[in-house]
């Protein structure tokens, strides 16, 4: 199972208390994980990537295994530790204020 950690705003929107576990068919990439996430929680459509262009919203970033994956290609494979479920894919809002 793929683990995804969402920022608090999106957890609230999806009525989630904690992390998400997703069963992703085929290659595990940013795109396939987000497709699975949005299929299960359609209210998140448009909140992480644009409805039409599918581009990542500018104030969000993707991290895993201590690496910034925000600028990786959407179809690039995610790290093996994410694929195995050992590490989560982190979706993080840019820090602002304070």
């Amino acid at each position: 199972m793929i683990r995804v950690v969402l920022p608090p705003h999106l957890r609230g929107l999806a009525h989630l208390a904690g992390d998400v576990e997703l069963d992703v068919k085929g290659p595990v990439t940013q795109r396939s994980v987000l497709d699975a996430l949005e299929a299960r929680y359609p209210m998140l459509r448009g909140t992480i990537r644009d409805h039409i262009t599918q581009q990542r919203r500018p104030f969000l970033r993707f991290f895993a295994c201590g690496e910034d994956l925000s600028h990786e290609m959407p179809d690039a494979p995610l790290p093996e530790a994410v694929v195995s479920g050992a590490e989560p894919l982190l979706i993080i809002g840019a820090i602002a204020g304070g």
Partner: protein
Amino acid sequence: MSRVRVLVGTRKGAFVLNSDGKRERWEVSGPLFAGWETYHMKGSPANPNRLYASQTSGWFGQIIQRSDDGGKTWTQPGTPPGEPTTTPEGMPKGESNKFVYDSSAETGKPLMTHQFYDGTQRPWEFKRVWHLEPSLTDPDTVYAGVEDAALFRSTDGGKNWKELSGLRGHGTGPRWQPGAGGMCLHTILLDPKNSGRMFVAISAAGAFRSDDAGKTWRTITKGLYSQYIPEPTAEVGHCVHRIAMHPSRPDVLFMQKHWDVMRSDNGGELWKEISGNLPTDFGFVIDVHAHEPETIYVVPIKSDGEHYPPEGKLRVYRSKTGGNEWEALTKGLPQHDCYVNVLRDAMAVDSLDKCGVYFGTTGGQVYCSADAGDNWAPIVRDLPAVLSVEVQTLP
């Protein structure tokens, strides 16, 4: 006894304030959509339990919320036609959040760019919904004014949105430009006597009128003079902050512009200035007394740049003569050291016998006057910055 429900949008969520007709004791509920900006929340005149809200975030985008029980519960009303309204797990779908500019060939000329602050052309890019205006007669029909400026309509209770692209496509779009708050369509007025007529206002493009239910549009800016734009009497480019109308006289419009308070007696064909003895004619809100069509309210704000009340005194100004002659209303409002702003969608009136007037501030206060402005009291003092205030008068 009648009662009122005040809908307050703030920088960090929404609040619902309830009172009986005396408007002395208030029950405050919220925050709804905690942590999200709520630009606007408004009830349907045809079904007061149907509320719409614009929940938005610079990080996560736009969410439309709907309540069918007067604000107790909320859902996202999304889904394409013919599909189930929820996922197999029972979750609501996300189509209601989708605002896509119309670039289809059949609706005419796709309009791709507008003027940016520096005069260059920029592509239209959806950012958020500023204002939701429910139809006067159909609870499932609602209009949305958005940034970058455009008008959308839903006819299925907010599930799906379609742009009324004749507004952007009517010819002047490439000359529209953002005001300091963004290029927003913030005012939507529906004519209660003529179902085909509607008015919108955009910062900083100006004011527009449609006489065919939003299909085609014309500018209504004759008489406006804006010394801060290269051509002060241009057809577009005016930073209109707000327009108000009394439902009994939809041809009479009152406007608070970036500078100048204006009036039109002919549906926007011609405007004349009515700033009169105001201490400053800059401001954002303007509204009309529920029972006296010539009684209007503004909150003068010091500008450029400061955007707080002159002399640190929060004063509502009332004209009972349709403009030009204004009196300061101060009882119950802070008269020293007050440096809040009152944003363009943050004033409303109820329709009880003694008209109630309400406004919210960027300091988080929501004030109510239950006697048409003579006396004021705060309903709440410490909300997040208030973006919008609407009021429903309920049986």
